[in-house]
């Protein structure tokens, strides 16, 4: 249960710290301030430095060795297996969000992969073009009325980028996962570690590219996380709603550009 402690400590603390006591007046700083909403940046950067260190010293060497030993087919099957275990929680969230089409897809996917995909080892649902919507509790909170960007940005120890809404969401999703209650803690921790090493090994090239292609890796991850979450959050919020109520749209506004041909 140890890791959830952090989610709640870091998840609820900033709730009392929202608002805009010291909004910058400079337009560049104001734009950045509102897009990133990261009042806890010094603490977040500290946690990020710790995560980076742990990643470089422990996770990366293990994942590299692991990738060398494990054939791609096995790694994919392990990823499929853990992904399949999360489907009951996604299903519950889809119902809570009133996303019945997604709920149907998730139920179909889970049934198909559990029975014909040998306990989830083979993702035949994706091959059959059944979507994988991954409805999470962060989205549910947004659907229930917690609109906007999800509160201050949070860098969670070990778990990585999040914000207040998604931090709570992740905690609830993890607690709701049947595996959390059904298996022995040792098994759970082992599974958690295997899942993470496996996922890291499968994405190591992309992560290395991201780090190399950033002048400020922390800031790069922060904006990518915000933009990707905005897309996921908005996907469950009705299209009839006004744009102010949705998560901020990160569409580039090119209206100030001096085009060469104009």
């Amino acid at each position, binding site marked *: 249960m140890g890791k959830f402690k952090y989610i709640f400590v870091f998840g609820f603390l900033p709730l009392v710290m929202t608002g805009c006591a010291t909004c910058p007046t400079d337009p*560049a700083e104001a734009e950045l301030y509102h897009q*990133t909403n990261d009042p806890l940046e010094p603490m977040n950067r500290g946690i990020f430095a710790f995560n980076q260190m742990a990643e470089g010293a422990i996770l990366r060497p293990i994942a590299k060795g692991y990738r060398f030993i494990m054939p791609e087919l096995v790694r994919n099957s392990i990823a499929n297996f853990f992904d399949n275990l999360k489907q009951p929680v996604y299903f519950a969230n889809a119902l809570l969000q009133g996303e019945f089409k997604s709920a149907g897809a998730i139920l179909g996917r889970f049934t198909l992969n559990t029975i014909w995909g040998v306990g989830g080892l083979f993702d035949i649902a994706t091959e059959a073009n059944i979507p994988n919507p991954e409805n999470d509790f962060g989205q549910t909170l947004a659907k229930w009325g917690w609109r906007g960007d999800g509160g201050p940005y949070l860098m969670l120890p070990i778990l990585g980028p999040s914000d207040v809404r998604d931090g709570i969401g992740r905690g609830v999703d993890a607690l709701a996962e049947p595996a959390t209650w059904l298996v022995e803690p040792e098994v759970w921790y082992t599974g958690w570690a295997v899942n993470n090493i496996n996922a890291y090994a499968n994405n190591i090239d992309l992560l290395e590219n991201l780090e190399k292609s950033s002048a400020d890796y922390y800031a790069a991850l922060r904006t990518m996380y915000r933009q990707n979450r905005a897309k996921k959050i908005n996907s469950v919020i009705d299209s009839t709603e006004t744009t102010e109520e949705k998560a901020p749209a*990160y569409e580039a506004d090119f209206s100030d550009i001096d085009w060469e041909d104009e």
Partner: protein
Amino acid sequence: MKKLTALICAMMLSVSVMAAQNPAISFVDDLADDIISNVLTAEVTPEQKLETFRAAFTKAVDLKSVGQFVLGVYWRKANDADKQEFLDAFTEFTTKTWADRFDMYHGQDILFTGVRNAERNQYYVDSQIQDKEPVEVIWRLRQKGDSYKIIDIIVEGVSMAMSYRNEYSAVLQQNGGNVKALAEELRKKSAAFDNQNKK
């Protein structure tokens, strides 16, 4: 299963028809084909690959306008020499970054799902890269005469232009708006890609 196969076939057919009809889709489709056949699957040295990629990438992407957008309010504050230095460094850096990203390509299909008019002479070309799960990629194009230039690539909701702008704003805010220092940082970072290719 038969029905599903038929549906997929029908979809692919309509996509290729659409590609043939819409010039914006053709532009992206041709670019992808060009890079796949002349860079990724071509049997030439890594140096030649990078040069071919550079030619295609800098021709297709309006890096001058993207660079201006990326600097945001700092663009107007910078002098012409610093602007040029930033644009050069940014061009070199994005070329190497994206060459490295395209290098991860391993034969996935790109499915074009539609095109939308963004504003006046701008278009969004919607596509899906058929990886293990489909990855949504939107190409934002700007028409220039009878051709197009890419001004943004949006992968799963993450805009390339917005991400660079946001990240570089954070850097510039910390260094007191020193565009020249940012350019130097990008140059240093570009060199890291060279070292990787030699190993």
